[in-house]
């Protein structure tokens, strides 16, 4: 409880900053709209205002500050506008919309929930593929010098290629072999999420010290026994830490994968928002994606606590 106070103050400060930033960002549009309605603004032509400093415009027209928080298509929507858009697209659309859950029995393609679900399924599938591939590669790297020398550099190179450049190519290549829909996006997700797992698990599988591997040797344990009874359990803290990064990366991958595919999802929703200047829609999708990431990371954290409690609780 003692921490609630400072947290509230910090969040309030962030909101205040957001509101403050929205004023100069949106003042030009607010002034143009006010001018059209016949309100006197300083300077009074759009041409003069174009070259003026945004902060100067705010100071010259303090009366228009509230307008800056109420634009239809603001450059930076105010928090309450984003909240309103979230409420509309998450709740009201399903209740009142023609294609909403209440009237059609399925999630509306104009609401955010359907798109969030599409993104979540690609993220989940991609994360599972990526994590498995990452663990498998790490096991290979730890057991074989050849694998380490041949795989690790490529794994690192793979992460230096910008995913936005790569995603359309992956989609096109997979489409040409007949794969479309969920899988291409999941593969882009997996592409981003396997790497932290490889790095984390290589470290984790090598965590047991020489004494512990010597001990295994004195018992004449097989490689498989050393892996399952020593290396894998010892790597669990590393696995969960890297999976937290991986699941967030998987979400980014799914969103980026949705940009070229246009088959729905939060990424498609953001792109559509930017086409039509619906900044509130972009921000709403953005916030929902962030919330999704937070929930996914928290789920991994929960799984970690469960697993570590089953493993003796002290680790």
């Amino acid at each position, binding site marked *: 409880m003692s921490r609630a106070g400072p947290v509230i103050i910090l969040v309030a400060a962030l909101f205040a900053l957001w509101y403050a930033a929205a004023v100069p960002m949106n003042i030009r549009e607010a002034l143009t709209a006010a001018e059209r309605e016949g309100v006197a603004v300083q300077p009074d032509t759009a041409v003069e205002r174009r070259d003026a400093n945004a902060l100067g415009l705010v100071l010259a027209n303090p009366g228009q500050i509230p307008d800056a928080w109420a634009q239809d298509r603001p450059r930076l929507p105010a928090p309450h506008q984003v909240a309103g858009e979230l409420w509309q697209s998450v709740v009201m659309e399903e209740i009142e919309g023609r294609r909403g859950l209440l009237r059609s029995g399925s999630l509306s393609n104009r609401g955010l929930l359907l798109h969030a679900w599409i993104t979540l399924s690609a993220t989940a599938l991609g994360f599972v593929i990526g994590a498995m591939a990452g663990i498998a590669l790490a096991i290979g790297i730890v057991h074989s010098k050849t694998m380490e020398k041949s795989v690790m550099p490529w794994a690192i190179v793979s992460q230096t290629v910008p995913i936005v450049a790569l995603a359309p190519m992956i989609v096109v290549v997979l489409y040409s072999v007949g794969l479309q829909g969920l899988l291409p996006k999941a593969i882009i997700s997996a592409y981003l999420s396997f790497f932290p797992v490889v790095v984390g698990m290589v470290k984790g599988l090598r965590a047991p010290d020489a*004494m512990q591997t*010597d001990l295994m040797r004195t*018992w004449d*344990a097989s490689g498989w026994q050393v892996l399952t009874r020593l290396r894998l*359990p*010892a790597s669990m803290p590393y696995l969960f830490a890297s999976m937290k990064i991986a699941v967030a990366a998987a979400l980014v991958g799914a969103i980026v994968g949705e940009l070229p595919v246009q088959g729905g999802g939060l990424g498609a929703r953001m792109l559509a928002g930017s086409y039509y200047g619906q900044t509130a829609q972009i921000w709403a999708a953005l916030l929902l994606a962030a919330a999704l990431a937070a929930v996914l990371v928290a789920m991994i954290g929960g799984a970690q606590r469960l697993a570590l409690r089953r493993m*003796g609780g002290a680790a």
Partner: protein
Amino acid sequence: MMNAPIAKTVVSARGVDLTFETADGPVHALKGVDLDIAKGEFVSFIGPSGCGKTTFLRVVAALEQPTAGEVSVNGMSPDEARRARAYGYVFQAAGLYPWRTIGGNIALPLEIMGFPKAERTRRVREVLELVELGGFEKKYPWQLSGGMQQRASIARALAFDADILLMDEPFGALDEIVRDRLNEELLRLWAATGKTTLFVTHSIPEAVYLSTKIVVMSPRPGRISDVIDSPLPRERPLDIRDSPEFIEIAHRVREGLRAGHEEV
């Protein structure tokens, strides 16, 4: 020889050399080591760091390969003996897995060696009683003191009933009081099980108190400078350490250590 001369030789080393190639040139960890250890003996290896006492133990355990010379364990090469699970090894740190209970840790070598479940349970209980940790089976390592953890690791080495026990400074990280108590227990354990024990230490009283034979080693190159057969009886109360015989052996060990140092 103090003990029966017909006693079977369990560990035999002939002219063992071991040289590590390092960036600073070769390091002679062992040079011309000859040693015979009979069945049921308790042999301590004592010497300053770098004298090769741990290395010799690791050679016997096939954790290091000698560069020259012959080592045989139970009439086999060390590696064959390792595969035959001829020895239990106790390290300086207990090395218990934090994610396994004490019982689970002791059962681990039994699992690896393919003992059936009922047999594992029976043996775990048995060795826990032996090291006086009965009832701690379900506890996790962090719930035990350092001395108890080390007892559990000895129990783990005893669980699969190998006839040789290799101990590399098992009590080195423990305080004097706990160490005395564990020394007493170890003697009792040794008397009860009759296992041939190779014990590395750098404590003179510990070596003299425990051993039937004390191997004094010196560094650069690592070699044996003296082998002392202890005249002390097998039955040894703690206060034997105040007896003249004890003090005399301790003195000889100290002399051996000093001589090894002056030669360098």
